[in-house]
Every structure is written in C-alpha cells, then in structure tokens.
C-alpha cells in the first residue's frame, strides 16, 4: 500500500560497457602512434653492448643499418659460427657493403645526403677485426657519419 515500495533486489546491476569502445580506441591510437615496424628479420645474434654517453638517432629515413654477429642457430649449418655481416635480409660479404651504402645514399634526396648516418649494430662478441673491415669499407664509400648502436647501461659490468 505504501507509495515507497522497497525496490526488489535483483543482484548487483551490470557495469555499463558504454565506455569500452572509447578505451579500446584510446589504446589503439596509442599503439598506432608508438609502433615501429621491424624492417628486417635478424639472421645474426644481436646483443648490443652497453654505454652511457649515447645519443638518440633521429631522422630514421637517413639511417642505414649494418648488422654484424654470429649467425643464429638455424643458419649455422650453412653459414658456420664465425661472425658475419647482414645487410637488409641477407648475409653479405664485407666487400658488398660499399655498393649497398652507395645504393642507399642514392635513394636519399640530394640535399640531405651529407646527413646520412650508418648505424653499426654489432653483437658484443664480435671481434674488432670485422668491425674495422666494415669501417674501412664505409670510408671507401665516403660515408663517414657512423653510430655504434648500444643500449643504455654502465660499461663496467658488461
């Protein structure tokens, strides 16, 4: 009879999912913006050494990568275990670096060519002999700006 009838309890009300798409979209945009696609599949081991005095590489379009390291397990039967150079998706000989770098430089527009940087991503177990050979090839190709790719960390406990 009373006007204020007690509501019949039907358990806890369901949580509104109206804001779910908003959250999903927010996450989607976040990942879309921060994502960097891997351009090459690594065929060599690549554990970078640590360093503290590092600079960020800017202008990705002006950077060319050279990988060096021992071939990964799957390729060891063909390539052996000695450190090798990888350019793009394939193993390469040191002699091929010069041509590769020159081709990459041609692809950059003329005004920005002097800014081209070569990033050497070498595994920390590689010996300097190979790195020096790479550097000599780069000198011959007249690409003198290089960057030794490292991760941040103290050098003493390498």
């Amino acid at each position, binding site marked *: 009879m009373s006007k204020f009838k007690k509501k019949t309890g039907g358990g806890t009300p369901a949580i509104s999912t109206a804001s*779910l*798409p908003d959250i*999903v*979209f927010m*996450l*989607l945009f976040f*990942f*879309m913006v*921060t*994502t*960097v*696609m*891997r351009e090459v599949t690594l065929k060599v081991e690549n554990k970078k*050494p*640590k*360093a*503290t*005095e*590092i*600079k*960020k*590489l800017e202008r*990705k379009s002006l*950077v060319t990568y050279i990988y060096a390291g021992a071939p990964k397990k799957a390729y060891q039967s063909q390539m052996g275990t000695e450190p090798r150079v990888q350019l793009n998706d394939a193993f390469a000989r040191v002699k091929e670096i010069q041509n590769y770098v020159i081709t990459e430089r041609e692809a950059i527009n003329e005004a920005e060519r002097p800014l081209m*940087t070569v*990033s050497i991503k*070498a*595994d*920390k*177990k*590689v*010996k*300097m*002999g190979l*790195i*020096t050979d790479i*550097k*000599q090839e*780069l*000198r*011959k190709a*007249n690409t*003198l*700006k*290089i*960057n*030794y*790719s*490292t*991760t*941040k960390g103290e*050098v*003493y406990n*390498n």
Partner: protein
Amino acid sequence: MADIAFLLLIFFLVTTTMDVDSGINRKLPPWEPEQLQDPPPIKKKNIFTVLVNSNDQLLVEEQLMDIEDLREATKRFLNNNGDGSCDYCVGGLQSPTSSDNPGKAIVSLQNDRGTSYDIYIAVQNELAAAYNELRNELAQRQYGRDYENLSDDQMDEVQDAYPQKISEAEPVSLGG
C-alpha cells in the same frame, strides 16, 4: 565497430617494438690511398695513447690499467695544463710529461684485430665520458647550467675549450 578496433589493437600490440635506436656517434676519417709523407709534428707528451690487446687488456701511457680508471686518467691528461695557457683548467697538475693544454691534447686509440667489440665500445664510452664531464664542469662554472642545456653559442664555446680529438689508428696484431 568495437570488434574491428579490437582487431587493430591486437595487431599493433603484437607488432610494436618499443626500443629507440641510440648509440655513440663517431666520424670516420676520409679514405686516402696514399699515406701522408710527413705527418705534422706533434709532441709526444700531447698524445695520450690507449692500446687494447686481444685479451681485452688496456695499456694506457705504457701502463696496465683497468677500464674503471680510464675516465679519471683521461680527465687528468686533458686538464693537465702543462704550459699554463689554460685558465679554465681547474686542478691541473701541470706535469711536464702530460699535455700542454686541452686544445693540443690528442687521444690516440689503437686496438688489436682480436679485441672484442664490447671492450672497444667501453673504451670509446669512457673517453667520450671524460670529455663530457670536463665540458659539463666548465659549463656549470661559467653558466651555472649543464652542457646539454646551454644555448648554441655557449655550447660552441665550451666545445672549443675542450675539443674532442680522438684519433684511431688502424689495428695491428699487438698479440696478447
């Protein structure tokens, strides 16, 4: 709608790699087939020699050294102020066997073909750190700010005060 968004979200979640590329910047000397006949004379005391052998041991100024001590040794060498012309070198030892002034000081690095890349980067890093620390100290004294936060003109000035001269010799077999 939400399904498509989810699908895209999962795609980007999987493909995303968060690492930014960073490293130590260096400039290579241009390629010259013929070696210069007469290299410009440089006094021996202005050269700080660092040798690394194939066992990753360091020989700095003809003495065995741990990588931990390299930064301090380099700073001492650069800041030595042997001829007294460097008025911003605080705490220079003025040793007659070390560098005249930071403008003349050259660090010479030579490694073996068997040296590991790891230790090479560590040495490069310590040498760069020595220069950066000296520049930072000078920037703090003169402008009360870190080197990184200076204006371009001020940065050039500090850079000229401690020019980074690291010369790399081609590797030889030092043995080890």
